[in-house]
């Protein structure tokens, strides 16, 4: 091999894109200093959300568990067939209970396995509701695999709306505490990559300043808390904890990964315009992949639209909004075809994300082998607003995880109680070595998902 090291900083300064060739791999060492032992390969978890249900007859593969043919919707993932687990027949039981309409309940329960809190958001039917009633699976996983990175998790949106309501969020750090997705790739870049490749002495000064300021601010909450009534105390204590967590994260130095190349700042005219949707999505995925490669985070959510999202897929020749179309009956074959096309498009986006991860070598394979992606949806089918047979796909790999999943399978579950949604969420948590025995509302969890 070439007998000369290039400094991490030199590399960070010069780079502009995410493409990185194999020769770089052996040139890099982590964080400037040569290490005798190779650091363990990071485990990663990414949520990939698209809304308004799918079209099951064009989604479900045919064949057996290990010998199957992908459907039209999933065909773009053909290259990565051995990196997929397609789950057919998981029922989102928690989404059938509690306040809120079907979209709201589906969205809240999707990653939390809980009923919604009571609240004031009025859906299309039923009692009004608040936000989800528990921690989301990505955040539970982040508590463990995200504790050593600069960001325990990163929440990205692609024209996600409905802020302030359950329709607008996938991730929750606690019951009723949502983590809003950032829709602006420019803000993601500024926030996530702010310290990568910067002036190290200026960064050290900023960290020291922030520590002084946050310590002092925190003391105002600490001294107030013991004087307050129970309700107010809970609020002030939560604020105290949030500042403490922020300080821990911000004052940590980042040990950038060997594959880290600081991307260029996104240059999008507008991230809000409907027709910019595909470009925004690509920009967010590029940033996400490099945030993972730089080991700035190991957990992320990528939220396309929001529950009841009304994006008009004009680049596929469609004028009507996604949610509007999803209400058409099955007899409107033109709409069924269009909704199929939308889901094919999302499948292509997932393929792009997997392509990007597969281009970055890591260990004996690529980053794709160490990144588990959960493609989820708040509904099964849009026009019936149902929650059985959720269109869920696990993609990527868990090769070095404590309890690796065997990928390359098509798992079909019988109708009824065989495959509970919360069992799947528990399995995801356990895959990363977390010893939990239940997830979400325990009433809807009977243990890890059978056969997974």
């Amino acid at each position, binding site marked *: 091999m070439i007998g000369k090291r290039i400094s991490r900083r030199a590399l960070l300064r010069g780079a502009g894109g995410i493409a990185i060739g194999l020769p770089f791999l052996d040139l890099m060492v982590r964080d400037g200093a040569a290490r005798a032992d190779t650091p363990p390969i990071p485990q990663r978890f990414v949520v990939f959300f698209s809304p308004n249900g799918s079209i099951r007859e064009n989604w479900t593969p045919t064949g057996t568990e290990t010998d199957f043919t992908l459907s039209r919707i999933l065909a773009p993932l053909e290259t990565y067939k051995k990196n997929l687990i397609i789950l057919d027949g998981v029922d989102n039981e928690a989404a059938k209970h509690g306040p809120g309409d*079907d979209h709201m309940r589906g969205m809240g329960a999707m990653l939390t396995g809980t009923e919604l809190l009571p609240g*004031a958001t009025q859906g299309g039917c039923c009692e009004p509701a608040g936000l989800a009633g528990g921690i989301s699976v990505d955040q539970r996983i982040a508590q463990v695999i995200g504790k050593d990175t600069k960001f325990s998790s990163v929440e990205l949106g692609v024209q996600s709306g409905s802020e302030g309501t359950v329709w607008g969020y996938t991730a929750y750090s606690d019951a009723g505490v949502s983590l809003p997705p950032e829709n602006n790739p420019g803000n993601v870049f500024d926030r996530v990559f702010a310290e990568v490749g910067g002036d190290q002495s200026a960064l050290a000064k900023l960290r020291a300043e922030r520590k*002084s300021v946050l310590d002092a601010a925190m*003391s105002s909450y600490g001294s107030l808390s013991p004087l307050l009534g129970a309700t*107010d105390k809970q*609020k002030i204590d939560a*604020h105290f904890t949030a500042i403490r967590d922020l300080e821990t994260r911000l004052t940590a130095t980042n040990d950038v990964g060997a594959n880290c190349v600081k991307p260029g700042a996104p240059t999008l005219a507008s991230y809000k315009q409907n027709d910019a949707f595909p470009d925004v999505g690509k920009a967010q995925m590029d940033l996400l992949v490099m945030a993972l490669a730089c080991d700035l985070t190991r957990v992320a959510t990528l939220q396309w639209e929001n529950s009841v999202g009304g994006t008009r897929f004009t680049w596929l020749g469609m004028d009507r909004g996604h949610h509007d179309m999803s209400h058409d009956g099955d007899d409107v074959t033109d709409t069924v075809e269009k909704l199929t096309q939308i889901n094919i498009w999302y499948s292509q986006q997932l393929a792009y994300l997997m392509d990007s991860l597969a281009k970055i070598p890591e260990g004996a394979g690529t980053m794709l082998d160490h990144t588990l992606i959960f493609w989820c949806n708040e509904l099964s089918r849009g026009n019936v607003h149902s929650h059985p047979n959720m269109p869920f796909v696990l993609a990527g790999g868990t090769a070095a995880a404590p309890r690796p999943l065997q990928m390359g399978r098509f798992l079909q579950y019988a109708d009824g109680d065989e495959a509970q949604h919360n069992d799947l969420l528990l399995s995801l948590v356990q895959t990363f070595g977390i010893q939990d025995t239940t997830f979400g509302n325990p009433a809807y969890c009977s243990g890890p998902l059978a056969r997974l």
Partner: protein
Amino acid sequence: MHRSVGTGLVCASLALLSSCSPGRIGALGGGAQDDPASPGGAGTGKPGSPMQGGVPGSPANPTGLTEADCLAKPPTPGPSFLRRLNRFEYDNTVRDLLGDSSQPASAFPPEEKRLGFDNNATALQVSPALVEQYMLTAETLAKSVLANNRSKIVSCDSAADAAGCETTFITEFGARAYRRPLTDAEVGTLRTVFDAGAATDFDTGVRLVVETVLQSAPFLYRVEFGATPASGETVVRLTSWEMASRLSYLVWQSMPDDELFAKATAGELDTPERIGEQVKRMLEDPKAHDVFAHFHDQWLKLDLLSGIDKDTAVFPTFSAPLAPLMTSETQKFLDWVVFQGPGTLDALLTSNVSFLNADLATYYGVSGVSGSDFQQVTLDDTRNAGFLTKGGLMAMLGKANQTAPVQRGKFVREQLLCQPLKPPPANIMIKPPELSSTLSTRERFAAHRTQTLCASCHELMDPIGLGFENFDGAGLFRTTENGKSIDATGQVNESDIPGTFDGAVDLAKKLAGSDQVRSCVATSWFRFANGRAETEDDACTMLGVTKKFSDAKYDLKTLLVALAESDSFQYRRVVPAGGQQ
């Protein structure tokens, strides 16, 4: 939402419809709660007549207390919770504290609205994202104030006397930001931060103190303990400093000004008379306009208006740029009534004044208006009455291609009569009846009345909403539909104005004379002012407020004065550390 995938009659096949009878009107009789999980929470209130107790329609006086009862009792304020600045208040506060009008809080996560407002204490939770935004914003604001407006926060000469100036800055700026004098411990904390920065230079010390203060609890929250209670006392008056903040956040939704601070220092915010005098002064300040606007926007849900779009095949003269103009028209009218016009609830509901520019006037067919600036006009009073008949509200409460009688009726029922309706049950198809080129809207919606199960709910909405049929789905006046004369008769059953009316102007006049509407407005303002739902303990406060509102012929500024002078605003419960609030 939209359960059925096929076609069929609206409101058909209702096997399980049970929610509209008899408890079809929710959340009255003391039922509205900040925490909807509590028994009797919003939407699960008592059935029956909203006319309860001594105050007609008062949600807060189900016990029927009289004025004499209240005079004989010590104050019994409802619970008061720590209130965090919401985005609007944060922006206003940094404007007044730092001279920064950049409205940085627009980047914060939005509040979850509760009871219709964005300042409900219980709903304002703290998320990691918000705390990070607080830090980044504090850093930006601190840099900016040093670059642009340093003298606003540093009044002394740091070159002449650095140590003295440090103390002056910390105590002066700290007291304005915390809205009360600092404790010694707080001065010590800020001094430590200052000194860490002053190792670089004086202004770095200033910057770090500003950053710290803007992230500290006494700035971001309105912390209240009240006066020290005497032995056995369970209710105490607020301190003058706490009262100064309550008043400034009520009337300006911002920090106190110099005069309020002076009154607080002198301890002169301790009687209803002194408080009322301050509120009257504060209402003369332009900042009060913003607060009325912020209330009206939320009460009338005007945020829904700016984004409306219409099917131009049905409404060919409508175009999207008219929506923000309609919003302005309505907002200018509301502001005019309160601050220049008669000032009363009656005028809000019945005045035929409006504000148009050339584009809007052309759209409505009003002559004599030119230019893009809005000008005051007087409209035909047989067609126009108050905010209800403005094109904006009518278009907002309209479908893309037709009117929306159900939404219009629901709006009147919920926003003006304070009678929240139960949502439709889960097993119902919600789809307006098919458009018709021959039938009138009233005829198309007839199924709502002929099918018993539909009627049990829709009789509360449709007979009101169909009274607005003279206004099409895009807000234009019309006298015919599909060649037929409009029948705009209706009635407001289950209310204190149950008789029939003919058309929106007649309805607006009836609403203006309704004690239930007056009480509803007072109750909405109570919720906005106190950041919480009224409780039975607030019954005497509501009684007193309603009486003063009535004595002043329902003058809206007087309503604010009355709220500030009320027991619930001046007093708080004594809460032991860790105790239930």
